[in-house]
C-alpha cells in the first residue's frame, strides 16, 4: 500500500500503450475461456433445462386438457343418468298412481253400492215407520173423535160413521 500511494497516474493510464499487449493478451485468454465454458457447458445446459421445462409444461397442459375432456364427458354421463332416473321415477309414479286410482275406484264403487243398498234399506224402514205412525195417528184420531162425539152428543151416530168422517178429513 505504501509503495502504491506514491505512484500516481500521469494523464490517462488508458492511453499508456506499453500496457496494451498485456491487457489484450489476458483479455483474449479470458474470452476464450469464457467462450468455451459458455458454448460447451452453460448454454447447452440452460437450453436443455428450458426445453425440458417447456416440454413438462406442455405435457401438463395436454394432460389437463385431456382431464377436462374427461370431466365434461363424465358430466354429460351424469346428466344423462339423471334424466333417465327422473324419467323412470316419473313412470313409476304414474304406474303407482294408476294402480292406486284403480284400487280407489273399486273401493269407491263398492262403498257406493253398499251405501245405496243401506240407504234403500233405510228408506224402506222409514216408510214402514212413517206408515205405522200414520196408522197410529188415524187410530188415535178415530178413537178421540168417537170419544168426543160420544161425550158431546150421546147416542148420536155410531162409531163407523165417525171413523169415515175422520178418515175423509185426514185425507183432505
Amino acid at each position, binding site marked *: 500500500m505504501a509503495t502504491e500511494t506514491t505512484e500516481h497516474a500521469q494523464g490517462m493510464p488508458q492511453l499508456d500503450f506499453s500496457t496494451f499487449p498485456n*491487457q489484450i493478451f489476458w483479455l483474449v485468454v479470458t474470452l476464450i475461456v*469464457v*467462450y468455451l465454458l459458455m458454448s460447451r457447458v452453460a448454454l447447452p445446459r440452460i*437450453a436443455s433445462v428450458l426445453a425440458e421445462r417447456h416440454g413438462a409444461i406442455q405435457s401438463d397442459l395436454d394432460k389437463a386438457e385431456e382431464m377436462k375432456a374427461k370431466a365434461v364427458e363424465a358430466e354429460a354421463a351424469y346428466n344423462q343418468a339423471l334424466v333417465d332416473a327422473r324419467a323412470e321415477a316419473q313412470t313409476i309414479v304414474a304406474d303407482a298412481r294408476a294402480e292406486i286410482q284403480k284400487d280407489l275406484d273399486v273401493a269407491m264403487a263398492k262403498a257406493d253400492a253398499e251405501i245405496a243398498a243401506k240407504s234403500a234399506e233405510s228408506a224402506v224402514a222409514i216408510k214402514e215407520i212413517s206408515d205405522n205412525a200414520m196408522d197410529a195417528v188415524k187410530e188415535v184420531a178415530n178413537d178421540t173423535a168417537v170419544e168426543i162425539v160420544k161425550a158431546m152428543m150421546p147416542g148420536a151416530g155410531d162409531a163407523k160413521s165417525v171413523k169415515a168422517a175422520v178418515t175423509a178429513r185426514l185425507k183432505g
Partner: protein
Amino acid sequence: MATEDGGSGLNIHPMDQFLVKPLFGGDGTIGMFTITNVTLWLAIAVVCIIALMVLGTRGRAIVPSRSQSIAEVLYGFIHKMVEDTTGKDGLAYFPYIFTLFIFILVANFVGLLPKSFTTTSHIAVTATLAMAVFLAVTVLGFVKNGASFLSMFWVASAPLALRPILALIEVISYFVRPVSHSIRLAGNMMAGHAVIKVFAGFAVVTWIAPASILAITAIYALEMLVVSIQAYVFTILTCVYLKDALHPHH
C-alpha cells in the same frame, strides 16, 4: 492517505485506479505475459461467470434455484435479443454474442467493487472487443454475401444523384462503428469511476463529507444502472452489426 503533494490539501487522484501494475512486483516492467492486476480482475470476472452460469445451473432443476433463474433470465434475454434483431439465422452466433455480453456485464459489475480494477474501462480491452466484432462481422458479410455485401453502402432507394454521397457517408459510418463501439463502453466506465473517486477525495474535508458520501451513494446506484445498460448496448449493437452482415440489403 492524505499526503502533502497537492497544493489545496485535497489529494485527489481519480485516474490512479486505472493504473496497470504488475501483481508480483518484479522489476516493474509490464511485458505481454506479465501477471498484472488486469489478469487478476479478469480472472475474478471469469470465476464469477463460472459461479453464475456453470455452478449456478448445475441443479438443472425444472423449478430453478435463484442463481439458475438468473442464468436463465440472462440466457432468455440475449437469446430473444439475437433472434429479434438478427433473425433466426443469427442464432448460430448466439454463443459468441452471449460470451461478449456476460463478460462485459460481469466485468463491469466486478469493476464496481471498491478497490477493484475495472478492466472494461480500458480502451485496450474495449477496442479489442469492438475490433473483434467489426472484423468478424465484415468477414462474415463477405463470406455470406460475396461482393453483394458492398450493396449495403449503395442505397438503392435514394435518388441516383445522392447515392455516391450516401455511399461515402455509409462507408465512413461503417468504419467509425468500432471506434464508437469501444469508446462508448470504456468512456462510460472510466467517467463513472473517476467521478466516484473525485467525490471520495472530497470526503476528507469534514464539512463536505456528508454531501460527498451521499453523492457517492447516488452515483454508485447510477453506475449500477450504467454498467448494465452499457453491457446491453454493446451487445445489441453487435446484433445490429451482425444483422447488417447477414442481411446487407436494406
